[in-house]
């Protein structure tokens, strides 16, 4: 094999390896996400595939599907105490998700990514 061809092959293999490894590096820890959701009583108002007072996580994921700012928007929603609209039309501050240790954004991001993956 000629030198340029060999380099091209190496580069292709490197890219393929990166693509394969990239999702693993950002893999969602579903158990950790559900554990945080339970600890914060999220499931009192949400379920994975059923609407309660809040929309199902499947519905949330569908709403944000393909949107570039989905993760940032959801993080804002669950950490700022902004108003959430309820089925009867009234608005109420959404609970602020708490982590242990406090304000651990990696845990929040993992929860949001899990919701978006439903």
């Amino acid at each position, binding site marked *: 094999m000629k030198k340029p061809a060999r380099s091209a092959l190496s580069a292709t293999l490197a890219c393929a390896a990166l693509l394969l490894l990239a999702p693993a590096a950002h893999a969602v820890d579903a158990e950790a996400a559900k554990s945080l959701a339970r600890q914060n009583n999220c499931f009192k108002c949400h379920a994975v595939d059923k609407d309660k007072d809040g929309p199902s996580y499947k519905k949330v994921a569908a709403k944000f599907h393909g949107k570039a700012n989905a993760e940032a928007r959801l993080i804002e929603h669950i950490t700022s105490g902004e108003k959430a609209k309820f089925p009867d039309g009234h608005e109420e501050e959404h609970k602020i998700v708490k982590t*242990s240790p406090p304000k651990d954004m990696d845990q929040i991001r993992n929860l949001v990514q899990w919701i978006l993956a439903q």
Partner: protein
Amino acid sequence: MDNNNPGAFKRFWNMLKRPSAKYSLIAIAGTSFVAGIIFWGGFNTGMEMTNTLDFCVTCHEMRDNVYQEYKETIHYTNRSGVRAVCSDCHVPKDWVHKIVRKSKAAFEIWGKITGSIDTREKFEARRMTLASHEWERMKDSNSRECRNCHSFDAMSPELQKQTPYKKHMKAREEGKTCIDCHKGIAHHLPKEYVEPDE
């Protein structure tokens, strides 16, 4: 056996049975009364000492695990500065239930001696079992210790958010008790715990 030369126990027993020839009844009654107060006061003071937060966290099993979690919760620090310590939630206030709980807690000393939860790994492995015991105790008492401070009647529809207020009033109608919904409020939930209807 020679009854004319009784043993030490028998002689002590005979002395207790013999009426006093030296002290008046009022002296004996008065001394007994004062001794009773001292004994009772000492007993209760000792028991109350075991109800303090400082006492609970002298044991590293509590200090390194549940205490650290509790310090991040609203029952430890909050807007109004009212703190609920371990015993406020885990030890009944009234005397009879308190004595029963304290007696059962004596078995925890066996756990301490045998080191049943002396490492983080052992504690996590037993967390579900231990938490389930406490949830069961709270359920059986209709969350008595929660209700020392909280009650459905004292919940204001104006001050409580609409959704929790609605859920609380529904829970009251259904005869639910605090612990049915509020598990893991001062400590982490066990990893095996799953919410109904997730």
